[in-house]
């Protein structure tokens, strides 16, 4: 029974990965098309929301204290057919992915996030979920290759390296906090992943924009079709603060659970240390946004370092460090 649901879950997951792979190619084709001069792009122009609130008909461009958004952001181009196909396939793959998680939950009779394989399964589901959700609010299709690429790597590592059979929960994990603490941690990770992508692109755009003469070439032309550094800065910030609030909650919920399970709310266990380090890095990021000399590049680097710490905490600390959080199942 359990085994057959687990097997079905894997079938769904492999199907999701296959569809993600096609979506990845389609996103890549879209990026490649963007590097072709604009004249060859289909003429149907669909205006695109750059950030929320951009729908207005006001005369002056929306500017805020924290960073102006250029109304002239050159994303006011049509979505290529490739991009539309990629997006639709991503939604389809995500549904299969969701099915895999649900089947895994049925197989285990519990939430599907209690070992490294399941953390990866559900964590990556949330990354794509958040990506799709944020797309309703601001156009992030240009991040498709990144997000789906990351997805394929994560799921590849998970299925090859982390796969474990469904086993019952050890007594230490039998707690409502498993549902809350781990889920919110994974959700925060999803936001940090998007913030990392936007911040990395921001650095690329800063380099391009700071050149005295506009760069030519296909890569540069592709870059002109995605939001400029200033807009990416704002997008990254808004995504990161959601992640930070969730991470703060993760840390606190973890402390409450630690008190119930281990008799102290904080004990500098390796996982606690890294959760703290990540929290401090993103706290620094938020402060950097309000500090002269740190806005822009340096803040973007902090977001990149922050997500690297998240990946380290997930991939290295969970698997190779010994501590109280030894639930990788490997």
């Amino acid at each position, binding site marked *: 029974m*359990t085994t057959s649901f687990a097997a079905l879950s894997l079938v769904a997951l492999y199907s999701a990965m296959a569809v993600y792979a096609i979506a990845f190619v389609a996103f890549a084709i879209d990026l490649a098309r963007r590097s072709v001069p604009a004249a060859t792009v289909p003429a149907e122009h669909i205006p695109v929301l750059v*950030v*929320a*609130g951009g*729908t*207005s*008909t006001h*005369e*002056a461009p*929306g*500017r*805020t*204290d*924290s960073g*102006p958004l250029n109304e002239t952001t050159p994303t006011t181009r049509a979505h290529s057919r490739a991009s539309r196909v990629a997006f639709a396939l991503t939604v389809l793959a995500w549904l299969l992915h969701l099915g895999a998680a649900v089947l895994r939950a049925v197989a285990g009779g519990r939430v599907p996030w209690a070992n490294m394989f399941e953390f990866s399964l559900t964590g990556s589901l949330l990354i794509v979920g958040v990506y799709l959700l944020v797309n309703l609010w601001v156009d992030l299709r240009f991040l498709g290759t990144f997000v789906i690429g990351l997805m394929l790597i994560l799921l590849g590592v998970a299925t090859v390296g982390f796969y474990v*059979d*469904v*086993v*019952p*929960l*050890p*007594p*230490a994990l039998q707690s409502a906090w498993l549902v809350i603490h781990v889920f919110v941690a994974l959700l925060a990770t999803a936001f940090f992943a998007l913030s990392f992508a936007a911040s990395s692109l921001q650095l690329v755009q800063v380099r391009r924009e700071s050149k005295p003469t506009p760069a030519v070439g296909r890569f540069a032309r592709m870059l002109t079709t995605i939001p400029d550094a200033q807009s990416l800065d704002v997008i990254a*910030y*808004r995504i990161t603060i959601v992640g*930070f*609030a969730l991470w703060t*909650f993760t840390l*606190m919920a973890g*402390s*409450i659970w630690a*008190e*119930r*399970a*281990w*008799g*102290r*709310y904080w*004990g*500098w*266990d*390796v996982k606690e*240390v*890294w959760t*703290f*380090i990540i929290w*401090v*890095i993103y*706290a*620094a990021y*938020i*402060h*950097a946004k*309000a*500090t002269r*000399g*740190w806005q822009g590049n340096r803040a973007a680097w*902090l977001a990149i370092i922050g997500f690297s710490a998240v990946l380290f905490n997930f991939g290295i600390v969970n698997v190779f*460090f*010994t501590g109280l959080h030894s639930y990788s199942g490997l």
Partner: protein
Amino acid sequence: MPALGLVGWARWIWRQLTSMKTALWLLVLLAIAAVPGSLVPQRTADPNGVLQYFKNNPDGARVLDSLQAFDVYTSVWFSAIYLLLFISLVGCVIPRTRHHWIALRAAPPLTPRRLSRMPVHEAHEVDVQDSGPVRAELVEEGMRLLRRSRYRVVTYPEPGDPTGASQSVSAERGYLRETGNLLFHVALVGILATIAIGGGYGYIGQRVVVEGQTFVNTRAAYDSFTPGRFFDNSMLDPYSLTLEKFSVQYEVQNPKALGMATDYTARVSVRDQGSSQGHTSSIKVNEPLSVGGTEVYLLGNGYAPEITVKDPTGKVVFSDTIPFLPQDANLTSLGVVKVPDGLKSQVGMIGFFYPTQAVAANGAFYSAYPDLVTPLVTFNVYTGDLGLDSGAPKSVYTLDTSSMTQVTGRGTGIDSLQLTPGQTVQLPNGLGSVELTGIKRFASFQVAHDPTQGFVFGFAIVILVGLALALFVPRRRLWVRINTSKTGRLVLEYAGLARGDDPGLAAAVTDLAQRHRSRFTNRD
């Protein structure tokens, strides 16, 4: 270069320390300084890891120890960073609180002369001739709409109109953003202060209790005990706790997880000081027991064989249950029996316990399952000096064999002793006999008392709420102005300014403009 003087320097240092740039560097440093504590075992989290480190690499360990690398989070350098950070934070929060206090009671600012210079601005000409009553009504309507959206609203006389009859509307909202920001930072200081002061009043102790044994909450009864700085023994409420039964449930259905423990339950009976009547209760992982101002947690468990040793005449010289420490998932366990008196020499035995004994291809024993199916204890026997008379404390879990002679086991020509429950075997050299009388389970409990936990929790809630307000409440100013076009018709101007990140600013201005005008057009 002008001399600053002592006060001048002090002021300069204070200003540097409380600047955001310094705080930012301190945050980055704090993150970096926390890393080594995850790479090197820490005395508080992993004391055995530290001992192991010293054993494996004594020279490196000494160097690291001199840098406080085994106590990173109480080290001078780590403390220096976070204390400076908190001083910087306080120095930043105090003036900001003062500013915010003033802002909270101040009216929204004067309407800017040129609203078109604001980040968001709209102007709409409407098909109505300018007149005093219409203007007044529009101002009234603007104020009403903004008030309903919870703006603080004020009107200012237009500078171009000496009569003071025409007015502009100025509104501001989102004061909670800064309130949240300040609350967040104050609560951080609160947590640090609570831990610094209150941590001294708590204690934490561990105790292994075998089934049938009773633990009384006194300091001497603990196997290990970590008191806070202000602790004294009178803080211990001497309740007693008896482990009646320790039961374990194993997975028996799922072939991939056979023998995996799915539940540990410690049935205990608790008797408070002064009361003769006890009550029974249970302690599980994730479900501690509250008693006598403490919480009792179930941290670990294992087997405790009951060993009886007799001299050659059959007189019992030793009888005790010895907790054996689990070494693997199937509970192969290691324990030590020390018989100091009654035999012709002191005897020490290093024992292995296999709850389900099995034999590997190379002849070595191992445990194939964690429950008691075919339990077996083996002993290597040593004679000589146990080292107990030196007065130095010795662990009950280790045997110092440096001044002892091994008499059974590998290299002695005599096989290790093997005992199944109820079985008696003779010790070599006519020393006497050993019997495995029975097998019990033990639980290891942690008892913790932390009077400040509630405060820390309260501050944590304030941190979370403060953070949400500071990050997600938009602080913004909106203005409405009524102008006249060259043809004498009304021109309505709306503008907005965000203070801090505000994704909804443009939408807010548009929304205000629409509703303000729709009222106006619906009027006729």
